[in-house]
């Protein structure tokens, strides 16, 4: 056996080229307990390899044709042996890769490993982050379900806002004047050929740089990076270094293996994602949502005032990316330990808190009307019971009007935006106690005119008859605590000071 290997090696020269790379020394500290922080880069790489393998498997069955994509996915989910598992694994390994990349990036940032002489490694890393996110986005499009279709529509509309060039960008994105087969083919080429190619190029440069500039030593408070003296300092570190082929590699391997096991278990237990339905744009009930890594952007845009929207859509992401690129140039030298870098630690905390809150908002999306609430969410029964209000309440004499008002509330789709007892849309305020808060006149005014200037509520004045408005307001004024009187405007008695 040894002779066969020797025969190959005499021709490939692997021992003399590859072995020094594998056994290159890394700082002793990186082989100690601190070394566990260093595993996330290789975990990201491992999950990328899983994606390539599962992606190739999927490409043997998936048909990137607008007419057949859905059928091929259904076939993979239900007919292809283990097709469901491959689809699920491709999704969860992809999600896992995004998580690992973010953890790796945060660790590098907090340990100041991007400082001299590893600035270019960071820059390559930012490119890798962009490629990873692009893969996630283009991958969702390939699922070619209503979420994907309308997601592309939103992307096209955003691109359409680019000044002057808007329509050209839209047609390049869509591959034509409409969303269709050309769009799917385009995104397939991007997802399978172009972006992986770019990713592998950046990966090669990134790994080359890690090899050439070395793995950074764990940060020590007080040990500052000075470009004039760092190289000599690092050389000295390496003299007491340990070879990578050994404990450090084993650590990388362990965490990578655990990551693989985690995504496999997730895939096997949860199963494949979608497709959520056939890609028929005329199907009603479409409620598109972006994939989880983009929910924060979805929430940010949905919560922005309309005047700032185009700026946030088009300029803000560019600014964010430029800031990421500039990190190693703004803070090239100085302290590396997080305990001495309060701005860095604070930035990370603020960033992740913001992303977390925005993602949570993106999940619940309270700004979206609940399209089925008007017919699917009934008025809570106790609000319709006459006995709820005290004996002397004037409304009790005309209770059938109250019931008619409740019917108007439902039929005019008010519940799509307004909840009762938490059941219904979240876009507008919950109306459960509205009778104790707004007077009859205020209610008529609000419903008739909505929010002036086209804000949050449309004007319903012309959308119902005066009789319907009457009974609706009758019902709404009963929506108060049993012992609460209906809202009344403050009265001024002549001769006394205003309250």
């Amino acid at each position, binding site marked *: 056996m040894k002779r066969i290997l020797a025969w190959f090696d005499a021709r490939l020269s692997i021992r003399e080229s590859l072995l020094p790379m594998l056994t290159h020394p890394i700082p002793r500290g990186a082989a100690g307990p601190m070394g566990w922080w260093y595993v996330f880069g290789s975990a990201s790489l491992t999950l990328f390899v899983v994606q390539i393998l599962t992606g190739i498997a999927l490409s043997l069955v998936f048909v990137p*044709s*607008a*007419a057949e994509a859905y059928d091929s996915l259904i076939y993979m989910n239900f007919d292809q042996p283990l097709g469901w598992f491959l689809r699920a694994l491709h999704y969860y390994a992809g999600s896992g890769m995004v998580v690992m990349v973010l953890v790796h990036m945060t660790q590098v940032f907090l340990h100041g490993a991007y400082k001299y002489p590893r600035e270019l490694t960071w820059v390559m890393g930012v490119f890798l982050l962009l490629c990873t996110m692009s893969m996630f986005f283009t991958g969702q499009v390939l699922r070619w379900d209503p979420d994907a*279709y*309308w997601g592309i*529509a*939103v992307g*096209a*509309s955003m*691109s*359409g*806002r680019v000044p002057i060039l*808007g*329509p*050209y960008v*839209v*047609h*390049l994105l*869509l*591959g*034509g*004047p*409409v*969303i*269709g*087969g*050309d769009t799917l083919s385009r995104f397939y080429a991007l997802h399978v050929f172009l972006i992986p190619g770019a990713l592998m190029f950046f990966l090669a440069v990134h790994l080359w740089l890690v090899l050439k500039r070395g793995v950074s030593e764990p940060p020590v408070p007080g040990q500052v990076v000075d470009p004039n003296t760092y190289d000599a300092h690092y050389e000295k570190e390496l003299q007491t270094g340990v070879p990578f082929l050994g404990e450090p590699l084993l650590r990388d391997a362990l965490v990578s293996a655990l990551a693989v096991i985690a995504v496999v278990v997730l895939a096997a237990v949860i199963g494949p994602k979608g497709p959520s339905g*056939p*890609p*028929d*744009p*005329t199907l*009603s*009930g*479409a*409620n*598109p949502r972006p994939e989880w890594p983009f929910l924060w952007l979805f929430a940010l*845009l*949905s919560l922005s005032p*309309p005047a700032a*929207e185009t700026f946030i859509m088009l300029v803000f992401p560019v600014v964010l990316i430029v800031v990421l690129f500039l990190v190693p140039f703004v803070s090239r030298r100085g302290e590396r330990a997080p305990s001495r870098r309060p701005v860095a630690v604070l930035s990370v905390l603020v960033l992740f808190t913001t992303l977390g809150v925005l993602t949570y908002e993106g999940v619940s999306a309270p*700004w*979206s*009307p609940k*399209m089925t609430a008007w017919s699917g969410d009934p008025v809570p029964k106790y609000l319709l019971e006459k006995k709820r209000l005290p004996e002397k309440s004037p409304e009790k004499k005309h209770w059938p009007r109250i019931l008619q008002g409740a019917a108007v509330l439902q*039929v*005019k*789709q008010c519940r799509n935006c307004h909840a009762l007892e938490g059941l219904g849309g979240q*876009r507008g305020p919950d109306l459960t106690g509205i009778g104790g808060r707004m007077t009859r006149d205020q209610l008529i005014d609000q419903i008739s005119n*909505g*929010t002036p200037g*086209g*804000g*949050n*509520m*449309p*004007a*319903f004045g012309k*959308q*119902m008859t005066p009789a319907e408005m009457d009974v609706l307001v009758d019902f709404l004024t009963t929506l108060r605590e049993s012992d609460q009187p209906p809202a009344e405007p403050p009265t001024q008695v002549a001769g006394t000071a205003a309250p």
Partner: protein
Amino acid sequence: MTHPSTPSQPERRTFFHWLTYAVGAASAAILGVPLVGFLFGALRKKEEQWVTLGKVSDYPQGQTRMVTFDNPLRQPWDGMTAHTGVFVCYLGKKGDKDDFRVLAVNCAHLGCPVSWFPRSGLFMCPCHGGVYYENGDHASGPPPRGMFPCVWRVNKEGKLEVQAPHYPSLQDTLQKPAKV
């Protein structure tokens, strides 16, 4: 550029060097130009097409309803993705001509499909809560304008025809064929 062993280069060698560069440039050009042209082929203008949506008498006056059809701006392999909807409302006679209102289903904010609610007379968008009145005017929410009206006509046989809608955006509405 001169050969290291000779003190000066004969003119013929210089000529052949430049010839090589020229041939190289030519080969790059004849490879590159068609490739780039292909990649930007999506920007080629498509001629306007019309879709017949039925007789005028099929549309009761004052009733907005969604009409679906296969968009002729499709590729042959689009399947159900080419199903397109428009909201049509017959407005009665304007003078002696039939008047219609034809609106695209795409919200003017970011393109999601709006739903029509006849009981309240409102179009509502599921994505960010844009709302429009029956005539397409903006009622509330983030859309910067009303819904996109489509170009329509009544042909000689008394049938409503609508111009095949390309994907509408703020700078490329449906009032004309695709800008690109």
